[in-house]
């Protein structure tokens, strides 16, 4: 692979304006959030609601940075093959390199440039992460999701009702936590309620006035998790899989590295698509079409089991949510990496097949 052409393409996929733009927006999004944790007394009846401001800033920075980076990525990636057809084919086409090797180097550089944008976001958002916050999740060890359990739908516990979920036999460290996603529901006396969670002799109560998590120390090796509605209102357990088990994580950079890999795969996916389409149509149309295809795929897959396999899909959302809670996202799943690799192959095939000639048919001089 020609490294000089790879470098040139990387530079064009992530030009200075894109690097500065992504850095500025990420920085503004992070700095726009409260700088330190705030403890707010909501009501004497309510427990203290602790806002983990540091993580919120970090996740907001990731979202804002990724939105801008996605737009820059498709725009600049689509322009690279367009330049070849505009005039650069005059010297690329007469060089001794094969067309396949030119496309390979160009695409590799484009993907590398796009991935560099995620590094910028990660460096900025990471500095607003766990270390700078004081939320409850920040006080213990860094946690990552170990397993999901529970029914595949939401359901309601009326006052006095109890829900039990058996966890599979698996040895968990003492710092592991189990939590259940709950929310108040209509159908009983009050608009709010109180819930009790029990696990291996550990209990915890929570006043449920909005969507929240019931959390308790996890059993050391399997066992039963029980949730009881001890208030006067109805309690909804938010499915699917409302029970989550979290284990200590040794993720680097408090999980920002894992999120960075997810973001890089998302941008690489978009860059490869825009590059391939840019070889067949104008850069503006190719950029818009790339975003539209990704968005369409995301919407189409949203309710299917394949939603996690789309770069920039449900897995990325879950990873950003995890960062927002001061926890670590999970490792990138192989299916996600395979989809991104598939997009890169598709981009290569699209660009290579368009290179029957180095001049677009409608262009002449």
């Amino acid at each position, binding site marked *: 692979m020609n490294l000089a052409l790879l470098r040139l393409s990387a530079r064009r996929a992530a030009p200075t304006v894109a690097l500065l733009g992504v850095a500025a927006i990420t920085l503004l999004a992070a700095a726009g959030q409260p700088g330190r944790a705030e403890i707010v007394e909501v009501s004497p009846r309510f427990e203290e609601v602790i806002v983990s401001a540091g993580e919120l800033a970090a996740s907001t920075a990731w979202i804002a940075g990724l939105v801008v980076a996605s737009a820059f990525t498709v725009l600049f990636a689509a322009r690279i093959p367009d330049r070849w057809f505009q005039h*650069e084919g005059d010297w690329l086409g007469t060089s*001794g*390199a094969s067309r396949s090797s030119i496309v390979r180097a160009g695409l590799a550089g484009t993907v590398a440039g796009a991935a560099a944008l995620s590094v910028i976001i990660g460096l900025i958002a990471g500095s607003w992460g766990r270390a700078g916050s004081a939320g409850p999740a920040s006080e213990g060890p860094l946690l990552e999701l170990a397993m999901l359990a529970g029914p595949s739908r939401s359901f309601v516990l009326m006052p006095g009702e109890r829900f039990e979920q058996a966890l599979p036999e698996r040895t968990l460290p003492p710092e592991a936590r189990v939590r259940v996603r709950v929310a108040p529901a209509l159908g009983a006396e009050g608009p709010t309620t109180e819930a009790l969670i029990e696990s291996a002799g550990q209990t915890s109560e929570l006043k449920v006035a909005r969507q929240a998590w019931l959390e308790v120390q996890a059993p050391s090796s399997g066992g039963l998790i029980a949730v009881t509605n001890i208030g006067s209102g109805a309690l909804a357990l938010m499915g699917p899989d409302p029970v989550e088990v979290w284990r200590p994580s040794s993720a680097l950079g408090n999980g920002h590295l894992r999120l960075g890999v997810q973001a890089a795969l998302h941008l690489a996916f978009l860059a490869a698509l825009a590059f391939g389409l840019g070889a067949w149509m104008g850069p503006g149309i190719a950029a818009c079409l790339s975003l539209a295809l990704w968005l369409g795929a995301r919407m189409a897959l949203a309710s299917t089991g394949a939603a996690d396999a789309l770069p920039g899909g449900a897995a990325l959302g879950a990873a950003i949510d995890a960062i927002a809670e001061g926890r670590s996202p999970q490792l990138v799943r192989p299916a996600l990496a395979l989809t991104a690799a598939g997009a890169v192959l598709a981009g290569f095939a699209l660009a290579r097949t368009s290179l029957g000639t180095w001049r677009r048919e*409608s262009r002449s001089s």
Partner: protein
Amino acid sequence: MTSPAPPSQFAVEARGLGRVFRGGLGWRRRTALCGVDLTIRGGETLGIVGPNGSGKSTLLRLLSGVDRPSTGWVEVLGHPPTARAVRRRLAFLPDGSPFPPELSARRVLDLIASLGGMARPERRLRIGEMLERVGLSGAGEAPIRTYSRGMHRRFGLAQAFLHDPEVVLLDEPTAGLDAPGFAVLADLLGAARGRGATVVLASHVASDLIEHCGRLALLVGGEVQRVGTPDELLGDPEVLQLRIRGLSEEGASALEQQVERSGAELLESGPTHRPLQELYKTREPRGGGSGPR
């Protein structure tokens, strides 16, 4: 390629070459080239002259393999120009400046040479030499976008001649060149001829090509109208040009009278103009002529 070509004895051979461009939706068609037959022997220098829009650039793109003909076929060194073996032995100077404007001349030359498979130590050596040769050694690290038009052309020449190609296709090589630039072009073409390279030059200014070309092809409206030596194509048998050095005023007067006595008409008489290059040699330029803008 529309039909298989027989083995060629020419360095460049084109038969029935045509190129039709389609408009936006493919409805409007414009014929840029029509049935061009062209043969160039190894070591020959051919000039293609014609007005703007006559198809010179399109013809060179087809010969270089950058574009594909709508009809007919091309062979360079006995193979289609798109063959990898040919591309390593062929050089093309396109019209304008299509090179990455954000990179320095040295970087672009390195990129092009590496794409051609030139080893790194050789690249380093040759790039320095070539920049020196085209007068850009002082501006080799400046981004190409800062170059003047003449510097762009010098750079184009540098990339074309960097790997000692066997077939050189130059589109408007003199556009924007100053007098020293013409000397650079002459030097490069002389060296190429010296090693037996085949050269094709295209320009709308015939006088720029005459001194370099053994033959000229006149291209008008996408068709080759005439091919011949510069004298055959541009010479006027009715008019004789004499250039005399060291003739006194009296001698000139006697010569004029002699012409009139013979019944011929004297069209023009007077001192010829010295080339600008000579003036440059006698007076140092005040600005750094070859520096970036």
